[in-house]
């Protein structure tokens, strides 16, 4: 069995995790074009090298990031998303008149 090192829970069996996709920078949904949004949602680099990707530990409901090589399957590092995301994102919406 493959073991993945969860930054919160330590080394766990890979079957406890769900893959969450490549880390991408999100365009601003309020201002980006449909094309940019489609690019963000559907398109991927998907290159056989080192990538940064999301993983989810199902048992504890915890999302984290991993650097993994897509050819060798070697995981170089796993880390808490707090290392990259320091600011709280506010999702606010302008109230429509009426």
């Amino acid at each position: 069995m493959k073991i993945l090192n969860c930054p919160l829970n330590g080394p766990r069996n890979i079957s406890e995790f769900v893959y969450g996709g490549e880390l991408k920078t999100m365009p601003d949904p309020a201002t980006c074009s449909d094309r940019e949004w489609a690019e963000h949602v559907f398109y991927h680099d998907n290159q056989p090298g080192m990538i940064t990707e999301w993983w989810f530990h199902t048992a504890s409901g915890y999302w984290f990031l991993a650097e993994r090589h897509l050819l060798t399957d070697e995981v170089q590092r796993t880390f808490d998303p707090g290392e990259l995301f320091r600011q709280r994102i506010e999702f606010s919406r302008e109230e429509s008149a009426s």
Partner: protein
Amino acid sequence: MPFALLKYGLSSEYPAEVDLPPPTELKASYDVVIIGGGGHGLAIAYYLAKYHGVTNVAVLEKAYLGGGNTARNTAVIRSNYLTSEGVRFYSASVKLFQNLSNEFDFNIMYSERGQLTLAHTDATVRAFRQRAEVNKHFGGRTEMIDRQQIAELVPSLNLDPGHLPVLEGLWHRDGATARHDAVAWGYAKEAAKRGVEIHQLTEVQDLIVEDGRLTGVKTNRGTVRCGCAVQAVAGHSSVLAAKAGFRLPIVSYPLQAMVTQPIKPFLDPLVSSSAMHCYVQQTSRGEVVFGGGSDPYPLYNTRSTLELKESLIASGLEMFPFLAKAKLMRQWGGITDMTPDYSPIMGESPVENYYLDAGWGTWGFKATPICGKTMAQLVASGGQVPDLIRPFSLARFANFEQVNEMGATAASH
């Protein structure tokens, strides 16, 4: 008869048939370069030569013919998809497959056994009814059958596996298999006969794009100029696309399968269960093939894992408990390029003169003939997209017009 054979064998007049002419030097330029010598690349070359008289064509293959996913798949051929676009496309492929041995004068061992997909929930029964109707509408032979009929069709099947009793089945008479490498070789042989050059051990390492147009490719054997090029590289679509300067809506996952030792024939149809993520079939040699869904995370590596085999075999044994004593003989994996809507990408790319035959995921073997034929039309016409493949354009993602085949694809291939 044996004497006649002996006489032929010893006679020098008996014409020895050459499958492929010996390798030659690469020319400096071709009208069409096809990247990838799997079933798809070879089929495109064949139809280009046969129907369009385009023969100044080179198929460039980095390893050996049909050694990619064409040789790794479990050879399921069917057309019982969900969307009308999908059913129309795959039905046309099944029709071409039926006549391929005659067309090649070479036996591809097309074997029509029918495919049975099991429904374990009411929701699946409803979805299957829809698939049966869509399929019939386009001339396919598909119907719903009940437990009694299933028991008659596959007496060895356990109708109450685990917590998932079988409710009904989707019975697709057109379901079939064929010898997959024979398909590749049939296309190669016939394409070569018509003048197409097939170069094995020739890897395309870079693409030459000038002013937004593709003008040539760089290989380990030198640079080749071309009027246009098609990429048909199955598990490596994103890699080549990146060299042309664009991205694709594709993530590459390994897909694994395995076979047992040959045993006495007991199973004629192909049997699959979407809820158990497993399909089982017996080859004409008696081996039992187990297959399922892709690996749970992306990778460009065909290594096998014990986890996936354990879960597949557990489901397989729920369906056919007596197989518990069968010995596994071989297991393998291939890289599958998965798209978000479980449909392929065919047609134009963001680069002029560069065409895409990509995103075939776990289901592309059955499409080999029709994909070859329509892609050849596209190339020969200089970019006019045939109706049959128009819905599968790369542009569908930007236009939010996906062709969702997820439910009809998973674990049935």
